[in-house]
């Protein structure tokens, strides 16, 4: 009861904030009344509000999934019934809200730490040896990442005496210190976003966590550090980040797409397939950097403005729909694992007859991952493709369409298993309806993003970090 009260109240607040930002544009809130260089600033623009809304939706639905899982627990409950689950759950939700609103570099360091300290205990609740080791690995990676990030913050403060991103963006000049700060902060955040070469910790962490937790991990936790990377690269470092750096990230992204998809095809366990699909889809997001930064030189100056916001909001749109779709997929996988008491692919053959709703949710989420029309993923993919062609970087367009095909490969590999007609009628556990409908609800939300294209796009355009500012940023 308390849980639902907490969830509803947060949903109401986020709704209120969404309406305000939609009507009046970005809101700036100085904490403690002290303006930015001294105090910390909270800043809600279109992108952060959209992310807040998506977080609220996912947390609410996944919360409903867990409540239903606890109520019908028959034996294995994956650690939902530990009395520390709900406090950690709401701390994680608060941390997301803190990350998406804050504009202060050191404050973001602390919120990233909080994120890790919420995620790892939730991961450990699963209790198995593998979960512990995965938690330890994730903790170590996060430690390394945040320490590099902190050194970057220290270097920035040493040079510019301010910690707020907008001010850093204005003051920043190209110097060895800034270069070191950019390298270190990017390295730290890449570790936490699990981009290709640094992704080794993600599959075991997301594969062994309880279903609802891995839905959050894959859906949101990874995105928080990517969001932060976007804020930094298009807010603070806008002036000095070179095209080469953007292309380097794009290259890593493409490798991630290929590597993640290939490994996803070789997995035996359903959750690991989805975890590697996260590794691949993260590669998609990083194509944003070459498209926007590379785009400045290559496309005609006249229509540059709308192409940049197009690529930017396209990638963000893809991120939003991926968050919803991935969460739906993990919840559906949770239902399937709950029914078959194990998520090994050869043990879920022919489950489509028993769990039509979860398999349908999985398929819908898969459609969004593949970027096929009815889904939100398509809108994101469409805009990124348009940006790629507009800035004459057609090779990124190739990577995007290849990624879509590879995603189709592993989604249908799983779906094929569930449609097979099984002669021998083996007993599956009965899965409570609430869990299945939670998965379907999230998948439908991801589909809704696809249909209602224009409204979220206008929201994303409010104070968008990609729109170039006069005299600063990558517009020479």
């Amino acid at each position: 009861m308390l849980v639902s009260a907490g969830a509803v109240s947060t949903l109401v607040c986020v709704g209120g904030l969404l309406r305000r930002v939609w009507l009046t544009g970005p809101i700036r809130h100085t904490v403690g009344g002290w303006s930015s260089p001294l105090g910390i600033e909270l800043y809600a623009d279109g992108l952060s509000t959209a992310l807040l809304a998506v977080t609220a939706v996912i947390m609410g639905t996944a919360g409903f999934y867990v409540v239903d899982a606890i109520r019908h627990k028959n034996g294995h409950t994956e650690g939902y019934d530990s009395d520390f689950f709900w406090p950690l759950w709401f701390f994680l939700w608060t941390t997301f809200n803190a990350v998406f609103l804050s504009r202060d570099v050191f404050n973001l360091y602390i919120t990233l730490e909080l994120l890790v300290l919420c995620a790892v205990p939730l991961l450990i609740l699963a209790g198995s040896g593998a979960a512990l080791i995965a938690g330890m690995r994730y903790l170590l990676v996060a430690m390394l990442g945040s320490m590099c990030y902190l050194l970057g913050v220290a270097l920035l403060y040493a040079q510019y005496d301010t910690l707020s991103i907008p001010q850093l963006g204005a003051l920043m000049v190209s110097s060895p210190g800034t270069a070191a700060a950019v390298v270190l902060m990017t390295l730290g955040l890449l570790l936490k976003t699990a981009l290709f070469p640094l992704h080794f910790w993600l599959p075991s962490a997301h594969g062994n966590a309880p279903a609802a937790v891995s839905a959050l991990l894959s859906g949101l936790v990874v995105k928080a550090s990517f969001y932060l990377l976007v804020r930094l690269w298009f807010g603070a470092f806008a002036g000095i980040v070179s095209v080469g750096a953007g292309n380097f990230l794009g290259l890593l992204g493409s490798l991630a797409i290929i590597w993640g998809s290939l490994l996803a095809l070789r997995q035996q366990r359903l959750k690991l397939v989805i975890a590697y699909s996260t590794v691949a889809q993260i590669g998609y997001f990083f194509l944003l950097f070459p498209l926007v930064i590379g785009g400045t030189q290559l496309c005609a100056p006249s229509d540059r403005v709308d192409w940049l916001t197009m690529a930017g909001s396209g990638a963000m749109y893809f991120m939003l729909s991926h968050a919803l779709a991935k969460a739906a997929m993990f919840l559906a996988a949770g239902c399937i694992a709950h029914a078959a008491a194990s998520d090994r692919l050869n043990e879920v053959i022919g489950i489509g007859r028993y769990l039509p709703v979860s398999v349908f949710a999985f398929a819908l989420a898969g459609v969004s991952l593949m970027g096929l029309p009815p889904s939100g993923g398509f809108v994101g993919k469409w805009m990124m493709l348009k940006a790629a062609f507009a800035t004459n970087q057609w090779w990124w367009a190739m990577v995007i369409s290849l990624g879509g095909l590879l995603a189709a490969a592993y989604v249908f590999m799983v779906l094929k298993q569930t449609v097979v007609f099984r002669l021998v009628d083996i007993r599956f556990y009965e899965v409570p309806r609430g869990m299945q409908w939670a998965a379907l609800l999230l998948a439908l939300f991801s589909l809704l993003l696809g249909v209602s294209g224009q409204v979220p796009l206008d929201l994303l355009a409010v104070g968008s970090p990609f729109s170039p500012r006069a005299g600063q940023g990558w517009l020479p």
Partner: protein
Amino acid sequence: MTLHDWLPLLTLLTSLVTGLLIFFLAEQQVRLRTFLNMAGAIIKLALVAVMLWGTFHGQSYETRLPLLGQTDLVLRADALAMLFVGLSSLLWFLTTIYAIGYLEKSPHRSRFFGFFSICVTATVGIALAGNLLTFFVFYELLTLSTYPLVVHRGTPEALRAGGRYLVYTLSGAALLLLGVVWLYVLAGPIEFTAGGVLSHLEEESHRAALIAIFVLLVGGLGVKAAFVPLHGWLPSAMVAPAPVSALLHAVAVVKAGAFGIVRVVYDIYGIKLTESLGVTGPLAAVAAFSIIYGSLRALMQDDLKRRLAYSTVSQLSYITLGVAIVGPLSTVGGVVHLVHQGIMKITLFFCAGNLAETVGIHRISEMDGVAKRMPWTMTAFTIAAFGMIGLPPVAGFISKWYLGLGALQAGQGWGVGVLLMSTLLNAGYFLPILYAAWFKEPHAAWNEKGLKDWWESDWRLLLPTLATAVLSLTAGLLAGLPISPVGWVRMIVKQDYKLWTPFLGIP
């Protein structure tokens, strides 16, 4: 927003709503499911009739929904769209009756009919699409909704066929998407308008880009239009239940590809630009090669449905041939063949399904003397076969006649040669079947499936077959009337491409 603006959307929604409702029906609610199916089909037919009558009198129907930035979802009922919508909604009505009879006792019928209705929604969406984005949205929806139907039986070879189907169609769709996006970037939001919209781009030195885009678009559509190198998925998809291969693989899915090519050539590039870009030559060559190759492979098939599948591959390329040979008569021939081939092919598939269900015949070698057992089905089969070969009374003759004349008028003599060769090949693989069925003695007793009441087989399987056979006959006989498919196509060609074509080319 008068009623006229909502009609296209309503036709789309009738099958979508029924499909979604059917999904939630339990297996045993047969009567409710049948009622829903029938209601959806009849309402759709009524709406289409209203729109047909309206378009005939110049009334335009268009629904515009904001989807994405400046490009939005446009459903417009122009003359060409009405042709395809009419065809698919009529045949959907007949195939639903057929499917209800065919799937009497099989499992998962709710799932089947749900996806079946979504497929038809996608086909209607493709037909009514007003711009390339809408076309692509429904094109993908069609791929997604046909996959569950192909793997409906869940047997290993069904899954293999489904996998192969996906690989072909999804990679085709990826090519198409790249082309569409590149076109949007180059030319901005463009709509399907008669005579094409890209002529202004030609002199701005975009020739290379336009040709590349054309190759991408036609390549993407070619997968569904079963051009020879890309046709592999069609024969293997025959493992699907008969209604699926009848409506989808003879009419809806493959026609979507051909219809797309017609749209791209006539409504996006415009016939003058395509000719000046010099792409019509290779397109015609591919079409001709597909015609010959399809027929040759059909000769060698012993399984009845696979032979019909290869015949579809070759017949489809008639449409592309008609489009590729620049000229009013060949255009009429190509576009009208879209309808004729649909009606005739669906009759053949209905007969094949009927034979399989009633007397368990799958292979042509088992068809000796089957006409004695099932005279009505075989008469329908014969009418359709004659139409395929191109004998006068049946519709097939009309389109081949126009194609031939068009080829001559455009000075492409080899076109007539290809048509003659394919007619011979068609005869080569249809006449032996007819001879075996009518004149040979059955060498073994039929293993009756117990469907025989006082009709030769279940009435729900027989009536649609006869209906489509009569349709293909009347389409041939009443070709002169304006309401017949040929008349309608001549009106399209006159209305859209300013070229009046005398009936049967006789001035």
